[in-house]
């Protein structure tokens, strides 16, 4: 009798343990699941759901779900990078420096993806891959800023000095990136929507059907970007430990 009770209690205990573990796991990973679900959803819904019929855009309007979220993800990652650069100046910790460089790395990947998706879209709507549109140029230049950041890192051998000087350059360059991406395009005519007399997307064709996909896409890609950055950060930390 007592043996059975003990067994039952043990099994309940282990079940409780298990569920606690799952709960803990869920607590840490719910946003990763959310990111995956959102991106899969946008891929399916973005290609299948109805979109407004526009003259030149036609079906390419669906690229909005993939092209624009790349830039959001990139800006979020660069902001994280600057945040950790500022922190690493005061804490001097190696982890903060690695966080800054890995988020910049991931941000650059998203920037390149943004340029590529934009170039493909431009080919079908504006006629050529690169039409020297101000926004295209400025996006490319802001990527150059981050390439300069990586070159600067490679030029310094001593680790602490590298962390400090690279952080300073990163912080110094960030306001310029903001000017490049958010201020200058407003002053010039562009083929992009919302510039140079072109109506913005939100004014007529981002109707509720598109919003249903666009906002989840932005959130999903930002989360995916953040996830990639944490993975890169953790592998880098492990690599450094084994060295």
């Amino acid at each position, binding site marked *: 009798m007592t043996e059975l009770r003990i067994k039952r209690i043990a099994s309940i205990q282990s079940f409780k343990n298990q569920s606690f573990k799952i709960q803990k796991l869920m607590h840490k990973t719910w946003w990763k699941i959310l990111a995956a679900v959102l991106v899969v959803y946008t891929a399916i819904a973005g290609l299948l759901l109805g979109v407004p019929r526009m003259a030149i855009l036609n079906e390419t309007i669906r690229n909005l779900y993939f092209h624009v979220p790349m830039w959001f993800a990139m800006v979020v990652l660069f902001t994280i990078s600057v945040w950790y650069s500022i922190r690493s*100046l005061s804490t001097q910790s190696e982890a903060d420096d690695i966080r800054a460089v890995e988020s910049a790395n991931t941000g650059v990947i998203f920037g390149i993806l943004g340029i590529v998706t934009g170039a493909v879209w431009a080919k079908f709507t504006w006629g050529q891959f690169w039409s020297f549109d101000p926004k295209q140029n*400025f996006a490319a*230049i*802001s990527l*150059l*800023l981050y*390439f*300069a950041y990586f*070159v*600067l890192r490679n*030029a*310094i051998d001593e680790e602490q*000095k590298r962390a*400090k*000087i690279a952080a*300073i*350059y990163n*912080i*110094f*360059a960030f*306001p*310029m990136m903001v*000017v*490049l991406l958010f*201020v*200058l395009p407003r*002053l010039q005519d562009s083929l992009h929507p919302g510039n140079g007399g072109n109506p913005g997307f939100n004014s007529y064709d981002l109707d509720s059907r598109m919003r249903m996909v666009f906002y989840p896409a932005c959130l999903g890609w930002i989360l995916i970007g953040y996830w990639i950055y944490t993975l890169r950060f953790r592998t880098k930390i492990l690599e450094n430990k084994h060295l």
Partner: protein
Amino acid sequence: MQLAQQVKHLIKKEIILEWRSKYALNGVLLYVVSTVFVCYMSFQIIDKLTWNALFWIIMLFASINAIAKSFLQESKGRQLYIYTLVSPAALIIAKTIYNSLLMIVLTVIALAFYCMVFEPSKDIDIFMYLLAAVLGSLSFSTIFTMVSAIASKTGNGGMLMAILSFPIIIPVLIVLIKFAKNAMDGLDRSVSLDEIGLLAVINVIVMTVALLLFPYLWRD
């Protein structure tokens, strides 16, 4: 008050040092003059758009050469000596002010010579163009002074200076060229207010960030 005193003395020191050797001033002037000359021989006649762009490209390279030396050429011993005497804020302010003065002098001389060699267009608003030149030299000096401080901390400063400063200066250069183009076409002065405001804002931001960051940078 102490800061102002320190800044004053540092600027005085820079000017005296420069006046003794006249290295930067003469070197960069010669550089500008010979570049303008080479351009004249190869272009002969240029249209308005090229006139403007060429001037700013010449000024860009001249200012990189002029300002790169502000931190790169200081010897280690002298830097250490200065660091024991003054606060980092005083040092960066003094260097920026001195470089701005140097750049304004250089730009005005260069502009005069450039106008002599290549005739400017008829309806140029010379006052606004001068304003563009002065604002341009201010922006060049604020940005390049900080970048040269960063580049001087690495092994091979000269090459890094160009790599690090070009992406940062491009937005400023775009605004400047647009502003100067407006002045050259003799457009109404109120048209360029946007550009003047933006340049002023960029300068203020750059100066603030430089002031905040330099104390972390200067100590090895």
